[in-house]
């Protein structure tokens, strides 16, 4: 009880300090501009079409202006999948749980929804530079398609070796794209493809290429992660 009170007091103090700090950042105010483009956001928005050919400023930032972050982000996800597989590797043999079989409606329904989910995911990551979305949500949607099957199909399994190979090939492709930029243009992750007409599917240089790679990678990683998590106990 004393601990709880102590924590509450601590929280009130933290909340007060955070509140005062936040209060000095006006909500919804115009982006401050002291010098020429003091706010980097304004620069990105005004130059994304000329410099990258991408219509969606957020994805231009994610893939090109701050592309290194995205490489790191993909690595983090890769790490999570790897670490989870490593930690759960030996827990696999024990405990057998009795499981209820899924019903016919779930099984048939997910059969029909699964290809649709894959197409939807591909749509989301292919149109990353035009509409909201991108590699990560697209990959997660694809993985959600597999998740449906894991949930609603009796003992559904994905080939683990295949997933592993797809995952590492996609990762290597991403780094290779970066290295091609380094050797062709002298900067890592440089945009070595043409910009195209803004708004078309084939535009914005390497953004769609990288998003395809990320989508495939995230999809396979998430699927592997879910499968590993599910298989720590066996059916029946």
């Amino acid at each position: 009880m004393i601990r709880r009170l102590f924590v509450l007091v601590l929280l009130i103090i933290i909340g007060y300090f955070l509140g005062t700090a936040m209060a000095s950042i006006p909500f919804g105010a115009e982006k401050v501009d002291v010098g020429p483009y003091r706010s980097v956001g304004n620069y990105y928005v005004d130059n994304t079409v000329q410099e990258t050919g991408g219509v969606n400023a957020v994805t231009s930032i994610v893939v090109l202006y701050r592309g290194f972050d995205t490489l790191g982000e993909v690595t983090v996800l890769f790490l999570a999948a790897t670490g989870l597989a490593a930690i759960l590797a030996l827990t696999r043999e024990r405990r057998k749980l009795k499981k209820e079989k899924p019903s016919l409606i779930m099984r048939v329904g997910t059969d029909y929804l699964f290809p649709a989910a894959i197409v939807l995911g591909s749509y989301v990551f292919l149109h990353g530079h035009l509409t909201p979305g991108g590699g990560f949500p697209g990959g997660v949607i694809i993985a959600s398609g597999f998740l449906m099957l894991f949930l609603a199909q009796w003992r559904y399994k994905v080939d683990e070796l295949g997933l592993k190979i797809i995952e590492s090939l996609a990762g290597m492709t991403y780094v290779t794209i970066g290295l091609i930029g380094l050797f062709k243009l002298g900067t890592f992750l440089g945009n070595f493809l043409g910009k195209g007409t803004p708004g078309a599917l084939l535009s914005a240089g390497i953004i769609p290429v990288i998003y395809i790679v990320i989508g495939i990678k995230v999809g396979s990683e998430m699927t592997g992660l879910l499968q590993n998590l599910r298989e720590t106990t066996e059916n029946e």
Partner: protein
Amino acid sequence: MVSPILLIAIPLFMAFSVPIWGLISKKLPKLVPFFTFAITTAILVSLLPTLFSGQQGFNLTSVTIAGIKPPYGINLTFGPASAFFALIIQLVALAASLYLFEYEPPEPAEKFYMLFILVVLGATGMVLTGDIFNMFVFLEITSISSYALTAINKTGHSAEAGFKYLLLGSLGSTLFLLGIALLYGSLRTLNMAQLSLYIHQGHLDPKVLMAVVVLFIVGLGVEAELLPLNGWVPDAYEAAPIPVVSILSGVVAKAGLYALARVLYTIIGIETGVLNLLLIFGILTLLSGELSALRQKDIRRLLAYSSIGQMGLIILALGGGNSPMAMVGGLFQAFNHAIAKGLMFLALGIMAAGFNKWDMESLAGVGKAKPYTTFLFTIGLLSTLGLPLFSGFWSKFLIIFGLVHSGQVVYAALALIGSVIEVVYFARLLGYLYGKDPSEELLNSTLESKKGFALLGMTFLAAFVILIGVYPDFITNFILGGTAELVYKSFYISSILGGI
């Protein structure tokens, strides 16, 4: 085309490719970490000549990514401080990867090697990056792979230590992100040089500055083993596999330290009174670590607490930044601590190999059973103590003189007391190692002759310790340049943003 970016790109490529090597042959993944780090070390060494050219004796290059100029794109900074810490990281990682040749990692081995490469990659990225959000991303890479590596033994103990680390670590990095959010909200930029410039010009509200300082210290203090946030350290050091422990103390802690120094010195600036905070945190960490080490029986826990104490000493030295001498000592000490602790942990791993008991009683007399390994361990230990002729001597000397010089006599005296406590417990440890007769079990587990590669790596580290102890000029350039880079903001800003 050699560029610092390769220090990050090549390990990343190799880490992704480990499963492919595993398909070709089961033995191949074992070699990947060593070759990766050998390549990166070679790249780093080949970059050094250009680093130390120019009029000031060193220069700071900014490498853009995707060809976008610094305030708008992410850039890597390759100056003396970054290169110095990158060198520390690469050296420790190289020695640890040599150790891996003789080490049977917990199953699945492939994943272990991937995580091992990625933790070093994350630390290198943290050290090289010039963008604060990018630093957060690399911090997360480092810490998430460390969580996994801590818990990888899959015993209850290691899982618990891993969870503890994960809890503190992710809490810390979220707070760091909150600090970045506050900074971005007020200044609308993420580039460190730009942030530094704006804060210097006084565009930041003092309330926000205060909150940001606290959030950054708390956020990075988890990795840098600061006092209230280092609860994970002893448990993690006790539960993780030995090469991982040497990485944790030699690489992860150093990267956290660098991040802390970079953020506080370059971005916030020492004129804002951060230094007093650092002094207090440092001395508390130092004393608590050393005092706790006195009571330990398990050697790993003892070394863990000693490591906390050393980190406290370094932070104390950073807090004496008013006099460059303490700062120089601090950076020097970071180098020594990384090399010596890495060496000690690796040697301890071989001392207890095939035996798996880690308390002083069961390892008593190991000096007679495994003389060479124990000798290497002793070199690290003496260097940590700060005996003359070992590298630790110079750094402790510089720190204490620097503190006295900048008027912090009380802190200098307390640091000396800490060193005395250190002598007490290390002397006791040495007494156990050499003074007693080895048990049967210990004698039977003598596998020293089979550990050739691991001993090679450790010998290499020990040679460094002695070489620098005798001839410190070897890295003086680095340290002086690093100090200058960290302390003189205007140099950093003008090198990255161009003339002002």
